C-alpha cells in the first residue's frame, strides 16, 4: 500500500472494504526527554496477523497502546478502518476528540495485556459480559450466551463462576482473550500476552491465539515467541529504538534478516 491509498482511506466510507485495518504514518511519541517512537510507518491488512519483534524498550508496546489511544501520539497519524484515531479533521485543522468519542473508537479494537488485567472483583462470566452489557447494551441473557460460547472456545466454560485469582495465569489470559472477543472486535492487539506466564502455560495461550488467526481475525501481536511468529504470522516487523528496521514474511525477517541489528537480536533466541 502506498501513501495514495492511505489518503483515499480517509475519505468517508467510500472505499471502506479496501482500506487496510491499520495505517500508521510517521507516528512519534515522547515521554519527557525520551523519544520512544521516532516515526513509525506500518500497515496491517484485513485478516492479517502481524508480529512486532524487538528488544525491550524498542517502543513496540507503546506503539500498540497508541493504536487504541491508551497513549496519545505527538505527531503523525494512526487510522483504523480509515478512521483517524484520537483526533478529528475539519478542513485544514486537526482537533482532539472528546473522551467520549475516543471511548467509542475503542469498541472495535480488542486488547490483551501482559498482566491480563481481569477485574478481580467479578467472576469470569461477569468479566466477559461487563462491556457487552454496559457498553453495547446487550441484554444479560444474550451476553451470557455469547460469553459461554467464547469461554467454551478458550476451553474455560467450567470456570465461568470462578474468580480470576482462583485461575492459573494461562487460564486468566484465555479469559482475557474471551473478554476482548465478546465486544466482537475487528482488530485485536496483543501486548506480550505470554510474557508474564510460567513456561508450561505459554502453550495454551498461543494455541488459543493460533485458533483466532486461523479464523481470519486481524491481529497485531507484540511477543518474544519467535516460534509463534514463524508459524502464525503473515508478516513480521522488527523494531528497535523507536523505529521499524525491517518488515517482511517470517522467512525473510527471521531466517535471513537483512539488518545487522535484527540478526543480533535473533541470535539470542538460538
Amino acid at each position: 500500500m502506498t501513501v495514495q491509498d492511505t489518503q483515499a482511506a480517509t475519505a468517508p466510507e467510500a472505499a471502506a472494504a479496501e482500506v487496510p485495518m491499520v495505517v500508521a504514518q510517521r507516528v512519534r511519541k515522547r515521554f519527557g526527554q525520551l523519544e520512544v517512537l521516532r516515526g513509525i510507518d506500518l500497515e496491517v491488512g484485513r485478516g492479517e496477523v502481524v508480529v512486532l519483534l524487538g528488544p525491550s524498550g524498542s517502543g513496540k508496546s507503546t506503539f500498540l497502546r497508541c493504536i487504541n489511544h491508551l497513549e496519545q501520539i505527538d505527531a503523525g497519524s494512526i487510522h483504523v478502518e480509515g478512521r483517524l484515531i484520537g483526533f478529528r479533521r475539519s478542513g485544514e485543522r486537526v482537533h482532539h476528540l472528546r473522551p467520549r468519542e475516543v471511548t467509542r473508537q475503542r469498541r472495535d479494537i480488542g486488547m490483551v495485556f501482559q498482566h491480563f488485567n481481569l477485574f478481580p472483583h467479578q467472576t469470569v462470566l461477569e468479566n466477559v459480559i461487563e462491556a457487552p452489557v454496559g457498553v453495547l447494551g446487550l441484554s444479560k441473557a444474550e451476553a451470557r450466551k455469547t460469553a459461554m460460547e467464547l469461554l467454551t472456545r478458550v476451553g474455560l466454560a467450567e470456570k465461568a463462576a470462578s474468580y480470576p485469582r482462583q485461575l492459573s495465569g494461562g487460564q486468566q489470559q484465555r479469559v482475557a482473550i474471551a473478554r476482548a472477543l465478546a465486544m466482537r472486535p475487528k482488530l485485536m492487539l496483543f501486548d506480550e500476552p505470554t510474557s508474564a506466564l510460567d513456561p508450561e502455560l505459554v502453550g495454551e495461550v498461543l494455541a488459543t491465539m493460533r485458533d483466532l488467526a486461523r479464523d481470519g481475525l486481524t491481529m497485531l501481536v507484540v511477543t518474544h515467541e519467535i516460534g509463534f511468529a514463524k508459524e502464525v504470522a503473515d508478516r513480521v516487523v522488527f523494531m528497535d529504538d523507536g523505529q521499524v528496521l525491517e518488515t517482511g514474511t517470517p522467512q525473510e525477517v527471521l531466517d535471513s534478516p537483512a539488518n545487522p541489528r535484527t540478526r543480533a537480536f535473533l541470535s539470542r533466541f538460538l
Partner: protein
Amino acid sequence: MATTQPPATRDDPGKAELPPGAVPVVDVAGASPVRHPLRWLAVLLLAVLGAQLVHFLVTNPHFEWGTVGAYFGAQVIGQGIVTTVELTAIAMLIGIAGGVLVAVGRMSENRVLSTVCGAYVWFFRGIPVLVQLVFWYNLSALLPRISFGVPFGPEFISGHTNTLITPWLAAILGLGLNEAAYMAEIVRGGLLGVDQGQTEAAAALGMGRARILRRVILPQAMRFIIPPTGSQVINMLKATSLVSVLALADLLYTVQSIYNRTFETIPLLIVACLWYLVMTSVLYVGQSFIERYYARGATRHAPQGFWNFALFRRRPDAPSPAADSPLAKEET
C-alpha cells in the same frame, strides 16, 4: 549417606564414634519445650492487678452501681443516644459524600480544581474539630445575616444567622465538613490503590470514564476505603461528644446535665462510658461484615457467606489442618 551404628543414647549424644561425614540418628518427636519464666511472671503480675481491679470495682461505694443500673435504661439517656447516633450518621454522610467529591477534585487534571480541593483538606485537617465547632456556633458574630441569591445580585432567601445556625446545624457543619477532609484522603488513597491496568483494560473495552469509576475502580477501591472508614465512623461517634460544648443534648451532655443537678457524677459518667462501648462494639462487628463483602475475589478462597460469618462457622476452605475437606480440593 546412611549411618550404620545404633541410635546414640541421650547421655552421650556426641560421644558415639561416627565415621567422618556421618550424622547421629536423632528423633525430635517429644522434645521438651523451651521454658518462659518471664512470661509466667507477667501473667502472675496481671492476675494480681486484675484481682485488685475487681476488688476495687466491687467494694468502692462511689461507683454507686445501683444508680448506674437505674439510669442505664432511662428514657433521657435514650434520647441522648438517639442524638449521638443521628449526629454520627448525618455527619458521616456529609463526610463521605463531600470526601468523594473532594477526592475526585484533587485527582482532576484541572490545576485550579485540584489546588482548591487540596487547600480544603489542608484547612479542615489543620484546625481542631472543637475549634471548628465553636466557630460555626459563633458564626453570627462574623456574619449577622445569611442570604442566598445571585452573587453580588438580588437575594432570594435571607435570614438571621442566629436563627439559621442552630446548635444542631453548627454541630453537623463542624463535624461533617471536617470529616469530608479526612474522607477525601481515604477515598483518594483507595482510588490510587487500584492497579492502573484495571483502568486501561476497561478503557480498551470501550468503557467510558464514569462507568470505569463506578463498575471497575470503586468496587475495588472499597477494599481500601472501608476499613479506615469504619474507624472514622467509630471516631466520629466518639467525636460527637464534643458537641456537648454547644449545649446540644447528646449522650455526654445529657449525663452532664443530670449530674450537675444530682451530683451523681461518677455513676452517670459510667453510664455514658458503657453506652459508648456498646455502640462502638456494634460498629466493629458491622465493619467486619462489610469488609468481608468487599474482599470477594481478593483471595483464592471463595468469599464467606454472611450467615457462616455471623454464626462463627469455620469457612470450608480455611487454611487449617482440619479443613482438608473435599470442598477445598474441588476449588483448585
